[in-house]
């Protein structure tokens, strides 16, 4: 299928928000009037079941049709693939599933027909592609995309999601935490300041986030959860209940059929006190049983307890009590279950907010954030400040974890640590980065091995390797390193423990194009032109508003590079456009630095009512804090 699908060349591409869920996914955008709306298919259905079927004829089917096939073709129809994102084969092998897992280490691969194996990233990419096409049909053009992830997703799970977006041909503007997206949708609605808790129980993941809303700033204070706990687990518990004594002897196919039926029973139990289930299993056996709501609630009680425990921990992490909470927002289809609502209301002592459809609220928030990031709205009153969900650390002697950044650190964040060599003339160094709260590296999630190369040869213990760990606003880790004595930058090779390497993603991308290299070039040119337009717009706007900050001769220099970029963008060589972008970027850097300093000063002064004396003190503080040389030194750490 063609990825470069431009239906109306005149239409301005619209940024979109995608909720890539465990059981279903959806896409939303912001209308011309500023209203976020979810996109429906021709049957007026907004939810796309997160089901992907690799049919024997080689075709790929996504959504309801695939879900319908799930019971009779379980091995080639993927449900709840989100559970396997960013996880290793060994982990996946431990969980019951009907797929044909091949290989035992690295990222899991599932065999789907003769000689074909797919990774969870590829399966997820199919779902994203379906949503992208839906948006293309409706909007004519798709700009960047914000994809939501559970707040509790670790680095590997986030990276996998981002890779899936890339593979689906999306320009991923941001990975946004689902609870934060929901809060954004609610916050903009209510225009109310205060402390809020988002309780998000989805199909396969549970998140709880505590955040403060203050005049458009959504500041996450703490987050917690379980990336393997959700409505799916309720279905499983209910399936066990339905099967009764036979539960232990079910075939994989029967189990799946029973779980799918259990989902229906669960929904019915939200409305009624008793449900008579009559389920036909593959092979003709029947399960008939009457389940009461009380039975069901008893079966899911341990699951609910786990969510409440995580909620209490998040409150403690935020140094707050239940009484400090002004509102509780419910997100995720599983929160429709009355027992969930009751438990949450009891914990926080107030009725939760449910005015926005819990299935759609995340996608709506994502669409708003996509609009903001794409600069579509004049909405400069909204800002999301998120945190790192799980501590990051490196493995040290004896397998003990040395923590680099603790959980709930506001992101973007960075930390530097100095290491040394242990052998004479050693030129390489390996770091094992893990994520989690446990003391031993073996008990945490292994993220990647980073190998530093190009250390200048010295005696053992002489080199001072400063390793900089940086977590971006997506919650994704980047590592760079420098030898301090010589100032020599080390190259860092990343070997993800469970994820896919960059070259693997590139290969998959190439495979996805119909005409291989030609399409890649065309796409690169389109992307560079978009970037060129962006930098030209930004530069012109800056020259208009901040001309007073220009130094003599600077304007001429910038103008020269502007013209050069305009010419390059009119041509066909994407490398030339990239070079011209870089030159202009370089030329405006000092000017941009002055503009940022001024913005910084103004931000501090804005609220300062302390009079002239303290104002001068602050200004002095900033000056002394930001010497030109130091700032330049820091920005060299770019990768």
């Amino acid at each position, binding site marked *: 299928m063609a990825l470069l699908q431009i239906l109306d060349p005149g239409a301005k591409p619209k940024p979109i928000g995608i909720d890539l869920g465990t059981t279903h996914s959806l896409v939303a955008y912001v209308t011309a009037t500023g209203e976020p709306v979810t996109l429906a298919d021709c049957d007026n259905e907004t939810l796309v079941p997160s089901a992907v079927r690799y049919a024997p004829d080689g075709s790929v089917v996504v959504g309801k049709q695939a879900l319908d096939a799930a019971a009779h073709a379980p091995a080639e129809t993927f449900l709840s693939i989100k559970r396997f994102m960013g996880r290793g084969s060994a982990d996946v092998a431990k969980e019951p599933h009907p797929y044909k897992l091949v290989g035992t280490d690295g990222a899991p691969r599932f065999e789907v027909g003769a000689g074909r194996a797919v990774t969870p990233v590829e399966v997820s990419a199919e779902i994203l592609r379906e949503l992208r096409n839906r948006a293309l049909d409706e909007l004519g053009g798709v700009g960047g995309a914000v994809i939501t992830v559970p707040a509790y997703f670790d680095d590997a799970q986030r990276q996998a999601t981002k890779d899936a977006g890339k593979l689906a041909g999306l320009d991923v*503007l*941001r990975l946004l935490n689902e609870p934060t997206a929901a809060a954004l949708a609610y916050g903009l609605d209510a225009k109310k300041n205060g402390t809020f808790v988002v309780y998000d129980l989805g199909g396969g993941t549970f998140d709880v986030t505590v955040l403060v809303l*203050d005049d458009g*700033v959504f*500041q996450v204070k703490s987050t917690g959860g379980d990336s393997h706990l959700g409505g799916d687990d309720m279905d499983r518990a209910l399936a066990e209940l339905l099967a009764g004594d036979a539960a232990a002897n079910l075939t994989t196919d029967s189990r799946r059929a029973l779980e799918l039926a259990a989902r229906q029973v669960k929904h019915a139990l939200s409305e009624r006190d008793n449900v008579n289930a009559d389920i036909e299993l593959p092979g003709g056996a029947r399960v008939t049983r009457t389940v009461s709501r009380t039975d069901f609630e008893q079966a899911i009680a341990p699951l609910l307890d786990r969510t409440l*425990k995580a909620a*209490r*921990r998040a409150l*403690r992490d935020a140094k707050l009590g239940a009484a400090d909470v002004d509102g509780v927002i419910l997100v995720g289809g599983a929160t429709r279950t009355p027992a969930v609502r009751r438990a949450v209301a009891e914990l926080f002592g107030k009725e939760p907010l449910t005015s926005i459809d819990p299935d759609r609220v995340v996608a709506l928030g994502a669409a708003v954030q996509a609009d*903001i*990031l*794409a*600069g579509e709205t004049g909405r*400069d009153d909204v*800002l*999301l*400040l998120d945190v790192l969900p799980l501590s990051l650390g490196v493995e040290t002697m004896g397998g003990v974890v040395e923590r680099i950044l603790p959980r709930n*650190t*506001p*992101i*973007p*964040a*960075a930390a530097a640590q100095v290491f040394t060599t242990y052998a004479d003339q050693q030129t390489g160094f390996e770091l094992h980065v893990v994520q989690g709260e446990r003391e031993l590296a073996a008990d945490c999630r292994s993220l990647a091995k980073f190998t530093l190369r190009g250390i200048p040869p010295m005696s053992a213990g002489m080199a001072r390797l400063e390793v900089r760990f*940086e977590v*971006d*606003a997506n919650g994704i880790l980047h590592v760079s390193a420098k030898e301090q004595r010589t100032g020599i930058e080390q190259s860092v090779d990343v070997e993800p423990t469970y994820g896919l390497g960059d070259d693997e993603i590139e290969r998959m991308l190439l495979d996805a194009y119909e005409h291989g290299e030609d399409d890649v070039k065309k796409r690169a040119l389109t992307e560079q032109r978009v970037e060129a337009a*962006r*930098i030209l*717009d*930004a*530069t012109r706007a800056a020259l208009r508003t901040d001309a007073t900050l220009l130094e003599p001769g600077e304007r001429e220099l910038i103008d020269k590079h502007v013209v050069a970029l305009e010419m390059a963008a009119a041509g066909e060589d994407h490398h030339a456009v990239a070079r011209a*972008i*870089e030159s*202009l*970027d*370089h030329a*405006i*850097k000092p000017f*941009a*630095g002055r503009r*940022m300093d001024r*913005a*910084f000063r*103004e*931000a*501090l002064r*804005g*609220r*300062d009512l302390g009079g002239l004396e*303290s104002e001068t*003190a*602050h200004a002095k*503080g*900033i000056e*002394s*804090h930001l010497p030109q040389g130091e*700032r330049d030194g*820091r*920005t060299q750490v*770019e990768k």
Partner: protein
Amino acid sequence: MNPFATLGLEPAVSIDAKEIERRYRDLQRALHPDRHAQKPASERRMHLEKAVEVNEAYRVLTDDVRRAEAVFALRGVAVDEKDGRIDPAFLMEVMELREGVSEAAAKGDAAALVRFVADAETRRAALLAELEQAAGANGANGAAVDEARATELLGRLRYVRRLLDELEAMTADLEEA
């Protein structure tokens, strides 16, 4: 880095938490990378670096121990944790407190844990007040800093903080049991 300067504040051991929050949000409103997503790469990078720095300053200033350390570091006092030689009498006191806390936790005596927390909080407040004095109080520039005293007080503050962290973990375990 001077975290106080980053948030435009005068160095002080005790700072109004609301003021820190306010300045932090005002700065992020102006600097956060999301505000500059459409800017050229170097400008985005610049804002990212600055946002990281503001986040780090915020983390230091919202942490009692790190904030106090930062005040003394600015006054030229070495605040390295290893340098602390703490009064044995104080250490004995803390040890006894810890034993009491462990006992209460083992017995599941939540009310006792609450009393221990209140006691530790009082100690913490007193130490912060003493540290403020040792730093030469607000704005009293040039006043000599008693280095030995500062090191001692910081060491004690770290002990009380650790005790509070333990108490929190125990209270949590008790709640979840």
